[in-house]
């Protein structure tokens, strides 16, 4: 049992007037200490809901974690009383969101907010807390950190806010960091800064990350393992090199080929990008069998009727596809 986080057969559904949306429909993932797991997929595939489920932050109603098991270091989080769960959030598991402006309260100074996070979880004096906050802000390369404590979030630039978010998330040296599109709202050069910082800190504290993103480039450069999600299920999971070099699921394959990659040796004439046909299906109205079958280029008859099983297609390489079953 060397996994720090284990998600087993998680089902999170949303009950709405239009019907039941099975946003997460049987997801199993595991995370070793210090490991970075990339969780990739398009909008509505359930990657963010998976993350929120880990922290039990699904708003109920309309959402509900229907079944499954999420264990942190052997402790089942779904069985914990609410009070104990609150102690875990922000302490042993913390989260970074896409929009730092939403997660930082505009009415309080950043010093105030970081201190609060620290003082709720640790019995330490204020002076000590100030020291730790300043130290943390210095680690995320906020210039003249002591003066910045009195700044409000709107005083900071987008990149700086995201760095403050990282400081807040890492302040208690969590075992697991859930990063939900942490750099999507940022510019390319700022994104590089922020990612670099995040890796530096998590390495130092031996924090494991679930990195939720739609950006395949970020995953390729930073994750050790990658899970690809589609309509609430993990359809392929593999070590990063295997996944990018020999993707097995037609969806993964299509995704990788549809991203333009600057190629220095490309001839002047242009090749069109590879297209996955059709659109991501509506969660209320999923296709029968394998939910990818209407868009799949290698469809077999069975795909239309039966849900494909998980198939071991290589060492630690799983694909949910009838091609290999």
């Amino acid at each position: 049992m060397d996994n720090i986080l284990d998600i087993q057969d998680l089902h999170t559904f949303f009950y709405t007037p239009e019907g039941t949306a099975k946003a997460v429909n049987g997801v199993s993932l595991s995370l070793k200490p210090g490991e970075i797991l990339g969780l990739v997929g398009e909008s509505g595939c359930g990657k963010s809901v998976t993350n929120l489920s880990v922290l039990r932050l699904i708003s109920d109603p309309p959402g509900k974690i229907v079944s499954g098991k999420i264990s942190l270091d052997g402790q089942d989080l779904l069985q914990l009383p609410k009070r104990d769960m609150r102690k875990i959030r922000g302490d042993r598991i913390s989260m970074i969101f896409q929009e730092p402006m939403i997660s930082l309260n505009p009415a309080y100074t950043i010093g105030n907010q970081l201190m609060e996070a620290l003082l709720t979880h640790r019995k330490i004096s204020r002076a000590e807390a100030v020291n730790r906050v300043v130290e943390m802000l210095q680690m995320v390369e906020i210039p003249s950190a002591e003066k910045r404590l009195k700044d409000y979030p709107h005083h900071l630039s987008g990149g700086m806010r995201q760095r403050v978010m990282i400081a807040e998330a890492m302040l208690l040296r969590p075992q697991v960091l859930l990063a939900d599109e942490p750099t999507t709202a940022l510019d390319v050069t700022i994104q590089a800064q922020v990612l670099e910082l995040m890796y530096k800190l998590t390495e130092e504290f031996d924090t494991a990350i679930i990195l939720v993103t739609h950006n395949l480039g970020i995953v390729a450069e930073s994750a050790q393992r990658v899970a690809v999600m589609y309509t609430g299920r993990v359809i392929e999971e593999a070590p990063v090199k295997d996944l990018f070099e020999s993707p097995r699921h037609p969806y993964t394959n299509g995704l990788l080929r549809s991203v333009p990659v600057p190629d220095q040796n490309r001839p002047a004439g242009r090749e069109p990008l590879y297209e996955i046909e059709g659109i991501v299906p509506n969660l209320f109205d999923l296709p029968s069998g394998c939910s990818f079958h209407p868009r799949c280029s290698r469809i077999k008859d069975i795909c239309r009727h039966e849900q494909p099983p998980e198939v071991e297609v290589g060492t630690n390489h799983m694909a949910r596809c009838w091609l290999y079953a």
Partner: protein
Amino acid sequence: MDELLSVKNLKKYFPGPKRLLGGIKHHVRAVDDISFHIRPGETLGLVGESGCGKSTIGRLLLRLISPTAGSIFFRGDRIHTLNRRAMRPYRKHLQIIFQDPYSSLNPRMMVKDIIGEGLKRTTRISAIERRERVLDIMEKVGLRPEQYSRYPHEFSGGQRQRICIARAIVMNPALVVADEPVSALDVSIQAQVINLLERLREELNLSYLFISHDLSVVEHISDRIAVMYLGKIVEMADRNQLYNDPQHPYTIALLSALPLPQVGRKKKRIILHGDIPSPLNPPSGCRFHTRCSRATGICRDSEPELKEGDTGHFIACHGN
């Protein structure tokens, strides 16, 4: 003449925050002395980070806003001084596609009215002909005829972007400004829309000004690329030239910061320190000097001009 559109010394200053008693202290120099041209059938990519003024340029070209100074020529005609009425004949040649496929479609209008609006406004064709034309364009962009009378909320993001594209090309324009047209779309849908834009360019002999922050996408679709930083073009070159031999330190940093979906091709990443300065109060001299690793005294004091190095490769840097 081989220039479809050309821009000379274009400037757009927006009034900054007002001081308590009268007077505007600073202007936001969104676009500051920019010149470029677009040839017929060509795609010019415009890349840059937020606040660099790339979207402002798109809106200036269409005269949705008026320039503070400088000139814009369309097929040799000066259009920067035209009033709204005089601008009207040029409208159908210049069209725009926006980033957000939700706010760019009127939720109370049906697809046929959205696409047909321009035809109704500028041509005298009959309702039957208009219907034909709209259906024809819908097919071209990959929409089905039965979607003719639907409302935007019945469509996904990618399909909405197809409606926006249809609205732009139904006018048979010469130049389409595409302002981050795929940034809001899912990865698998992005490829569909990019291919559609490419195909339409060939079929209809369009030119694009393709504005984006995503270098991979710009590289894929553009013939030439201009890199902007804080209201200025810092480098402009042929696509291959720019990617194989970037000269400006900012372009080099941008390229190196680009995450690529390939494993094991780790390149040396240049991390730029500091944040993008505010265009309200840009740094003196070369605007990039505050973040540049090669900055010297001259960069702080004087602004580098955009000069041609190799043929067609323009760079604004004292280091070159």
